[in-house]
């Protein structure tokens, strides 16, 4: 569960990225977040991950009060979330395989488990043959898919994806969102930022529209995939 109360985020330079945002996302929901460039979508994601803390207001995620989180707790909290960053944030020194294995090692998984899990995740995003490459040796879309595989690695109860299909071709994008839907059906909460309105229209669900730092629209719409 994600709960945000009276959030204000002001960056240096006086930019009010979020202004009086109230939001509640229940466990098991699938939420699309849309909005113009610079509307504050990534800022919202950063709040959920405690990458930044709000200037005003409180954030609760997965039962943690993020304003009060300290030290080791931050790490433990973050392990309950899978994240696809808009700028991927793969570790440049590690291969694709090790980038994904890293988050499994962080959660103390056994060697055996890691050796099974990583290839499975890579095949899920169609990158089984690029396991040994380093991030800078991948195409944009490939990097994005590695980031997605990494986010899924720990079967997190909450998945936050900031434009996970921005560099990926339409067919694959549909496949990926389909996959996220399946994961969602199994109980994972999914929050996904996207600019691809056709995706939103096709899949439907809860749509939150941000406009200049404020929520201008927050409703459930039916997807065309259900209609067809």
């Amino acid at each position, binding site marked *: 569960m994600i709960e945000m109360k009276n959030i204000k985020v002001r960056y240096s330079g006086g930019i009010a990225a979020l202004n009086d945002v109230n939001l509640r996302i229940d466990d098991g929901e699938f939420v699309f977040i849309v909005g113009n460039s610079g509307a504050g979508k990534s800022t919202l994601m950063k709040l959920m991950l405690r990458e930044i803390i709000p200037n005003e207001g409180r954030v609760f995620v997965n039962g943690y009060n993020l304003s009060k989180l300290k030290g080791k707790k931050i*790490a433990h909290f973050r392990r309950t979330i899978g994240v696809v960053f808009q700028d991927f944030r793969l570790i440049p020194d590690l291969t694709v395989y090790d980038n994904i294995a890293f988050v499994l090692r962080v959660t103390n998984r056994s060697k055996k488990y890691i050796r099974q899990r990583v290839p499975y995740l890579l095949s899920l995003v169609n990158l089984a043959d690029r396991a040994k490459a380093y991030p800078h040796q991948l195409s944009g879309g490939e990097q994005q898919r590695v980031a997605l595989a990494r986010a899924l690695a720990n079967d997190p109860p909450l998945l936050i994806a900031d434009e996970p299909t921005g560099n990926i071709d339409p067919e694959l994008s549909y496949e990926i969102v389909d996959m996220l839907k399946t994961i969602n059906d199994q109980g994972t909460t999914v929050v996904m930022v996207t600019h691809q309105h056709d995706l939103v229209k096709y899949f439907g669900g809860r749509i939150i529209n941000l406009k200049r730092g404020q929520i201008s629209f927050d409703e459930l719409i039916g997807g065309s995939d259900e209609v067809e």
Partner: protein
Amino acid sequence: MKWSNFTYLVKQGFGSIWKNKLMSFASFCIILVSMLLTGISSLAMMNLNIIISNIEELNDVVVFMDKGVAEEQINTLHEKLKQTPNVREVKYRSSDEALEEFKQRYDKDYSVIFDKLFENPMPESFIIKLDDISLISNTVDNISTFNDVETVNAPYEFARFLVNMRATLMIIFGFVLFALIVVSLIIISNAVRTSVFIRRKEINIMKYVGATNTFIRTPFFVEGMIIGLIAGVICWLLTKLSYNSVMDLFNSNTALFTAFGIHDNIQFNEISLVVLLLYCGFGAALSAFGTMISMGKHLKV
């Protein structure tokens, strides 16, 4: 933490030395140079100290007795001198020995003088070595008051010179050492901060995917320690080499050797292990803990 994870982190530490060759090498060089300079300076200072005290020892105080004293009086004074504070060693020199010595010393220049001598003009004397040459005037004043002492001949000037020189050199060396240590710490801290700075984004990412500080630090720590240890060993080798070759230079050169009293200078073999341990210890500690400390602010995300 699982054992397999721990070994993984250690392996990572080793691996990243190679992956970050440039920075590893830079840190290595800086730690090496810093320790080498400090270490060699310290050794030089210690040896210089010994050399000066050897030179100091060469300077004896000579106590001349009144002319024509009896053997008993000589013995009494001998005993008394032995018990005088700050006197380390007393050697009796008979008047005959004294004349012989004198002749040998000045024969070449002034042999003509001795032809004119009809009897031995030399008094009985004692040659005294002091514990602390800086207290020479006190001791001489003390001895002058003893019975049967005609005069005490002490190398005041030279003693003062040596004491001053030792003090001066120790001040200079102490200052140099201090400066070297400060400068070493500054440039080592700079080097490790840089090598962490280069990877700050990597560190941030690790934090964002839920790694604990310990998990992130371990490979950096291992990496720092290995670099420090290697620097320590190489430092030790270089020190040993240069120390021994300097010693060889002095040894191959008897004049220098004896003049400087290098007979009981520090032998590298005796301190080899201590030097190795100190180098490795400081190298590993500076590098590993320096790295860990530098990581601090990048871990706060």
